[in-house]
């Protein structure tokens, strides 16, 4: 097996990361701009691409299998356009597929493109709710409930409070102020606490917005990264985990499936002490209480100590493990773009090219996480390093 690297990262223009109703730009232009920016960053021409991997939620796009119509993905070169779709984990699954295609020496340069997803949905809940098991759970469960169950269980188990959740949201909004691609930023703990309740204990400002904007990442073999000016970022470990579809079979022990996945991925990457060795993390938390469960599953702290870790400042830009320096998913697009972007953001941090959101001390090891499927059926986790 040879190594796979991130050679380039590109987003559509910052102004496209806005309320979907304010972004009057076609899917074709969004795809073209993100792909072009990623190719330019990798110093590649489109002819160099061997394959592309596309990911989105078909039900939210307004067009089924919309990638067939985009053309920016290399169809005019007749290269394969693989469509990987596993829910909110779509970007993680697509990035993993790209890494495997490069590691197995099948392809040298593979484009991963995450569509904005929700920007075409007039009423996203109608489609989101079809992710639940059709006979038994769909009649009474919606996407926001999926976040609320975890949060309620966490409060009950560890005595976390509304204020704890608002505080971690405010940290993300503070980070987002440095990120031109963030949709919203600057909300304080009080702002979050005063925002309306969606599904207890989730409030509007603790829940992801509906945003447009798209992201492309290029995964390459060594040759490409040797020939461009970016610091090479390798994929040291990546894997996915699967839980049951019916939630009746599950227990709400926070993110215990991520815990098991992290053990496997950290072993692949040779990480023994995650808190000491990992410098930066982009964690997929469309419902902000997840961030504490993620700290704990990734062994940044003991179970139940997430709020304390946050209050210590360890997950700030200048902390021991900077978490979501981009502002994360509650600050911007929570569609499939977001799960590709977690990997792109980590790559930029490790390359030292994250602009004003660059974490202190030239980070060397980062992790990108995604969560998705019915009630968080899937997780993916990647360890990248410089």
């Amino acid at each position, binding site marked *: *097996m040879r190594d796979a690297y991130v050679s380039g990262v590109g987003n559509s223009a910052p102004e496209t990361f806005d309320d979907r109703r304010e972004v009057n730009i076609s899917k074709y232009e969004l795809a073209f701009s993100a792909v072009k920016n990623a190719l330019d960053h990798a110093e590649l021409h489109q002819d160099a691409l061997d394959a592309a991997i596309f990911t989105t939620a*078909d039900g939210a796009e307004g*067009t089924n299998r919309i990638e067939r119509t985009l053309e920016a993905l*290399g169809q005019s070169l007749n290269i394969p356009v693989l*469509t990987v779709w*596993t829910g909110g984990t779509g970007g993680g699954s697509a990035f993993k597929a790209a890494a*495997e295609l490069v590691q197995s020496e099948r392809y040298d340069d593979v484009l991963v493109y995450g569509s904005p997803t929700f920007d075409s949905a007039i009423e996203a809940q109608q489609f989101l709710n079809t992710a639940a098991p059709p006979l038994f759970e769909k009649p009474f469960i919606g996407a926001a409930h999926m976040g609320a169950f975890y949060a309620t269980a966490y409060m009950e188990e560890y005595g976390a409070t509304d204020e704890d959740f608002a505080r971690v949201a405010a940290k993300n909004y503070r980070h987002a102020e440095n990120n031109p691609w963030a949709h919203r930023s600057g909300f304080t703990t009080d702002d979050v606490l005063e925002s309306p309740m969606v599904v207890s204990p989730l409030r509007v400002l603790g829940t992801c917005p509906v945003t447009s904007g798209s992201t492309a990442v290029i995964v390459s073999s060594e040759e490409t990264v040797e020939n461009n000016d970016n610091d090479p970022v390798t994929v040291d470990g990546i894997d996915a985990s699967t839980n049951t579809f019916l939630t009746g079979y599950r227990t709400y022990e926070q993110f215990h499936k991520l815990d098991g996945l992290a053990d496997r991925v950290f072993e692949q990457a040779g990480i023994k002490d995650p808190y000491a060795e990992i410098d930066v993390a982009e964690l997929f938390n469309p419902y902000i209480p997840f961030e504490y469960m993620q700290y704990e599953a990734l062994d940044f702290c003991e179970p139940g100590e997430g709020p304390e870790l946050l209050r210590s400042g360890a997950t700030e830009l200048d902390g021991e493990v900077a978490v979501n320096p981009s502002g994360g998913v509650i600050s911007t697009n929570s569609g499939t773009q977001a799960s590709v972007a977690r990997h792109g953001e980590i790559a930029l941090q490790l390359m030292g090219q994250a602009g004003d959101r660059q974490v202190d001390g030239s980070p060397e090891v980062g992790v990108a996480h995604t969560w998705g499927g019915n009630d968080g059926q899937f997780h993916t986790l990647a360890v990248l390093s410089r």
Partner: protein
Amino acid sequence: MTSTAIISHALTPPQDNIALRNDENIFRVSRRALNGVGLERDDIDAVVNCGMDAYDGITISSGLKVCPAGGYDKSSTRLQNGGLYAIHQAKAMIESGKADLILVSSEDSTQFDDKAVSAISQEPYMSQPLGWNHLHYFGVLANSYLESNAEVSESDFALTAAKNYEAATRNETAHRRTEHSAEEVLNSEYVCAPLRSLEVCQPSKGATALVLASEEKARELTDDPVWIEGVGAGSTPYWYREPDERARLPALRKAREDAYAEAGIESPRDELDFAEVHDPVSPVELMSYPALGFCDDGEEGDLLRDGVTRHDGDFPVNASGGTLATNLLNSDGLYKTIQSVMMLQGDEDTASVPGAERALVTDSDQLLGDGGHSQGVLVLRGAA
């Protein structure tokens, strides 16, 4: 680097309706594929599913299917382009050292209108308002094919369909096993001129599963592995700029180049023994002959009329009956792969191609419409 083999397969016979939920349907076929080589769920490293949300009627439909296919607490993923793309990815997982045993599976049980799904899969501003579906695109494709190629005619489309219907009668695991003569096909009503109803595939329901293994595991677990010697994949642009170019099936040509290069094939007719080709409408089978290098451009009509591609010809194409006989929309690539594996292993439940050692399989998602479609190509070698 390790090679990749298919070491077990299972098939739920294609039929009109399956009175099982999606999860029950995929569970049964996956269990049988594991039983075939004495494996338990814990023995496999990962699950790769193929299928499309729109064909299943729920979003993230793989969520419903990956656990009954053995994926609980493991790595799982899903591809929407069809079975050969799932095999393409599983092979990369094995050859990158990430897995030794992978279950690749798919099922079709949800009832839906394939024309409606195709219509919502078109470009939304200028195409969707026209209400076009795959049949209209296939009609345009067949017309440009006839116009650009003086060597083929509508009667060749009918002959191709008749050849495949006849082949299906010899395959216990084909769905539609009624013979239709070329004359009968030519007399069936137009669906979208020049395509006639008996030249157009109809949906089937069923389920398919394969166990893929690294070389070491394959040798340990079976005496009869089928080796994946080459895979290739390709796509085509959405917009119709040059209709004549469409009929050359550029996505299939690209996929073929990669698969043949990997398998070391230079003269496909001599080096392969048979082919199972995705033929959603019968003209597409003819277009695929030159695209796959079975003959030069323009010679495909001769190949057909000389009987070369009949089930008992020198180079059988769709000896299983092809897509006109069996059309599993999620699972077609895996179905054709299983048919080929069975033929290579001399399994009497499918068509017989005596002495066959090497086979070619293709699959596509052209049933959503020709624009922007994907093609996959697989080269298989039996243990013989």
